[in-house]
């Protein structure tokens, strides 16, 4: 069933239809929220806030337009709002010599360190760039759709994706050999 049909059913009070929409977009919403908030618990709270806000405002959704960008815009707003309100929690620091301390046969440890470092590189990007890269390179949305989510011009999205990628590629460069090894 199409998103618009599910949204119409959910608006009429169909819990199953709403549940299907949540299942369909849970991963995207959580990833986007995590890219904004960093912390997993906060990301889940923000993603949930976004889904509930979307449910309350389903009457405003235009079924002629794609549901994903509409929903993710609400989730992004919920996450940004939570980020502004909360006292920024200190994230676990990955010291430059982390790998030398933890290097070894434990691939999982390295994987976690890699993930942490990439998230830190992501966290250093301006919020809009961060969302643009995640929505484009991870979620596969078009520049036009991302422009809707972020409420900016398409050209701005292209520029954000470019600059965001460039910064992340630098972070990836340091792990290039390791990534090829564990593949």
């Amino acid at each position, binding site marked *: 069933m199409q998103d618009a049909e599910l949204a119409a059913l959910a*608006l009429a*009070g169909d*819990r199953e239809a*709403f*549940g299907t929409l*949540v*299942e369909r977009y*849970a*991963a995207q919403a*959580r*990833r986007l929220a*995590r*890219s904004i908030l960093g912390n*997993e618990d906060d*990301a*889940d709270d923000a*993603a*949930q806030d976004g*889904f*509930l806000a979307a*449910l*309350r*405002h*389903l*009457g*405003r959704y235009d079924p002629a337009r794609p549901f994903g960008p509409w929903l993710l815009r609400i989730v992004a707003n919920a996450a940004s709002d939570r980020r502004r309100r909360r006292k920024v929690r200190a994230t676990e620091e990955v010291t430059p010599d982390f790998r030398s301390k933890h290097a070894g046969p434990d691939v999982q440890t390295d*994987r976690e360190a*890699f*993930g*942490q470092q*990439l*998230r830190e590189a*992501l966290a250093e990007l301006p919020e809009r760039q961060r969302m643009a*890269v*995640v929505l*484009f*390179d*991870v979620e*596969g949305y078009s*520049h036009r759709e991302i422009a809707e989510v972020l409420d900016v011009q398409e050209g701005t999205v*292209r*520029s954000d*994706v*470019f600059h965001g*990628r*460039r910064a*992340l*590629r630098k972070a*990836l460069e340091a792990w290039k050999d390791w*990534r090829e090894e564990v593949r």
Partner: protein
Amino acid sequence: MTTSPFDHNPDPEVGEALRESLAMRGEGAFVRRVRAAAEPVFGEPNGQWWSVLGSWARPGLVAAAGLAAAALLWTGLRQGTPLPGSLANPIVELADEMPVPLWLADQTAPDVDVVLASASGF
């Protein structure tokens, strides 16, 4: 791989790395949690359908007030009744009902002292 601002394709390497680092466990639990949290929203009397009505309320009230005003005006014109409370000329209207001298004269009994003083020539 080189990227440019005009690149229309997602970067698979960056995408895969980000997907891996942003992945979160417990998706099933999350879905259940959201569904449970949504239950009161479905039950709210001012739930999603109310927000639709709410968004219609203001223009609806304005339109209803405009229609009511137009209907009143139309009814008044059709019945040909003069507009109430005409302030055209109250003196003329009163003069139609009683003679002007009578209307100008004091309707109350004169004060005895004033009458005596007038008679005494004061």
